[in-house]
């Protein structure tokens, strides 16, 4: 049993400045697996700078890891042969944030559908290709006669984003990596796009990695959630458990700050207030220590392991729970696998 996609202890470090002295750790020792046997929707939640987009780019092979390895079906993603790369490009699809930038404005939108059809030889004839395109559009709730032959600027952001979902579907992938797919789409269309993505998962058994800053949509679509902060996992596990009863101070702060569309559930009720500050002793300890309202001495010394605060439902990387059984960070994939098989 090999995973389709796997990150094993992957770090990504960006060096900027003339001498490369300014170092940003975008992702720090991350392990994650997407398994073919158990399709799930995993939401990666984090603010800007949490490394969530870097995580997506590493899995898509857009970036090489600084250390650790990204695998596609057990093979190093940076060393695939031509054939393997082609299979990879078919099995792993991406949906990005900006539904305009994904199109070439000089071509009709048909282009984004015909290119994968011809590149991967999905159709035997023109009529066959047309039928495939229409099926894909219908599956995401679009009327083909309103879409085909149009230019991108003639369609709304929501329509454009759904065409991208349709294209992803056309290839019958095993995995879809969706990086903020609804953040540039109007509220009234978000639900429709999320529904299309959810249907792909449900009907075709596609695993989805839903990368977002928005906990409300992550809660809605994700069976499991991984909360990232400055490149490290803060909390991970079953969505309902984490959102209803967060254990890590960062997750609590995050959930308390979410403006839920419900006037009776006020935000900012928790007494936890983030602190401003620089990290004493650099980044050796917990990444959140500098802002954590409940920080302790030991938080500055070494990063906490993942504590299994609720048995098999969730892990939290915080010394507050140090009486719970600890799990090494490299074991996160196994843990998430048993979370998803339990639900």
């Amino acid at each position, binding site marked *: 049993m090999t995973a389709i996609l796997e990150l094993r202890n992957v770090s990504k470090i960006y060096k900027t400045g003339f001498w490369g002295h300014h170092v940003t750790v975008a992702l720090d020792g991350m392990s994650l697996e997407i398994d073919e046997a158990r399709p799930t929707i995993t939401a990666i939640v984090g*603010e*800007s700078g949490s490394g969530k987009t870097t995580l997506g780019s590493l899995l898509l092979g857009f970036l090489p890891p600084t250390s650790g390895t990204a695998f596609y079906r057990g093979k190093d993603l940076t060393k695939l042969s031509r054939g393997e790369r082609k299979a990879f490009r078919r099995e792993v699809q991406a949906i990005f944030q900006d539904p305009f930038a994904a199109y070439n404005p000089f071509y009709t939108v048909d282009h984004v559908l015909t290119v994968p059809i011809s590149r991967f030889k999905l159709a035997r004839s023109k009529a066959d290709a047309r039928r495939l395109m229409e099926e894909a559009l219908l599956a995401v709730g679009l009327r083909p006669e309103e879409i085909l032959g149009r230019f991108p600027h003639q369609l*709304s*952001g*929501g*329509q454009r984003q759904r065409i991208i979902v349709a294209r992803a579907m056309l290839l019958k992938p095993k995995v879809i990596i969706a990086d903020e797919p609804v953040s540039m789409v*109007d*509220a*009234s*269309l*978000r*639900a*429709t*796009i*999320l*529904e299309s993505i*959810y249907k792909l998962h449900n009907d075709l058994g596609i695993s989805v990695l839903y990368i977002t*800053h*928005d*906990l*409300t*949509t992550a*809660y*809605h*679509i994700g069976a499991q959630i991984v909360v990232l902060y400055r490149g490290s996992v803060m909390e991970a596990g079953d*969505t*309902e458990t984490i*959102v*209803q009863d967060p254990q890590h101070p960062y997750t609590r*702060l*995050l959930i*308390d*700050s*979410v*403006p*839920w*569309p*419900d*006037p*009776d*559930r*006020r*935000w*900012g009720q928790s007494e936890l207030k*983030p602190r401003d500050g620089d990290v004493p002793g650099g980044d050796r300890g917990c990444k959140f220590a500098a802002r954590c309202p409940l920080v302790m001495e030991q938080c500055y010394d070494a990063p906490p392991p993942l504590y299994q605060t609720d048995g098999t439902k969730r892990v939290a990387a915080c010394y507050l729970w140090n009486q719970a059984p600890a799990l090494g960070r490299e074991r996160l994939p196994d843990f998430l696998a048993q979370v998803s098989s339990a639900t």
Partner: protein
Amino acid sequence: MTGVAEPTPPATAAGPISAPAAAPPRATPPPVEPVLRVEHLSVSYHTDAGRVRAVDNVSFDLPPGVRMGLVGESGSGKTTVANALMRLIKPPGRIDGGRIVVDGVETLPLSNEQMRQVRMRKIALIPQGAMSALNPVMRVRDQILDGLLIHEPRTPRRELERRVENVLVAVELDPRVARRYPHELSGGMKQRVCIAIAVAMRPQVIIADEPTSALDVVVQRQVMETIGRLQRDLHSSIVLIGHDMGLMAQFVDRLAVMYAGRLVEVGPIREIFREPLHPYTQLLISSLPVLGKRGVFRGIPGVPPSLLAVPPGCVFHPRCPQVMAQCPQQIPPLVQVAPNRWVACHLHEAAL
């Protein structure tokens, strides 16, 4: 008890912004004259493809001390309303007609110079995207002073500089930020500087156009709390413009819903969430992700109309699940159906 307008904690009530003159007492306002009145406002953009009516016959009142949200999808005209209130519509845009009364002053007939006196002093804007609203080659102090110097040329500079420091403290920034340049500040800090510029003259009406759309949720909450505290301290009114219904639910007292340039519903936020009257508002609210209802997706079918070819009659009728025979024929007027509740829908005209 989680009332909408809870009293300010005493610690923050004595913020420096309320120091020079005691803030007006919050309790027992006299029979309220609205601090902002908008009547039949229409704005068009004249483009090569034809005239686009971005704001069509919009009317609303805003009593003092009230936070009103203005929600709509992109292209619904909400930012155009904000610009019209500030009288910042530039060609090819034009205000076609209507009346705007800010704190007793009718602004549309004013000369440009007179309008300059009204801006900042009576009505101020917190712009969208603080990143691009600040001048990158001016220190923060000079950007805040800029407006103060124009409005109060006779006040000694030292006095104005002291006010700059006070207003920075009021938006919870270190006064030393005054010496910095925008690129030295984080996104949240830049947004706070924009808020400081907006409230420096203690305006009665603050227009906030998606003030936190570029910020992370934790920072967003902190910035909105600051805006809310300043609004209470100054006893100003706020028009918060945006598309995030969650933010509206958390922040405003009253909500106005725009669709394709028209107001379709206005009412107290709780009542709108509990019982939305207009079918568009109903669909909008049922499309929102709420706690406890995981995996239920309900989008609004169809797409918003192009403003170049607005449907006849009610603008929402092509997408409306409850469309009736008269909907494509007649534009439903915005009528009052209950105290503080207005709706523009033929379904609710009978309620009168």
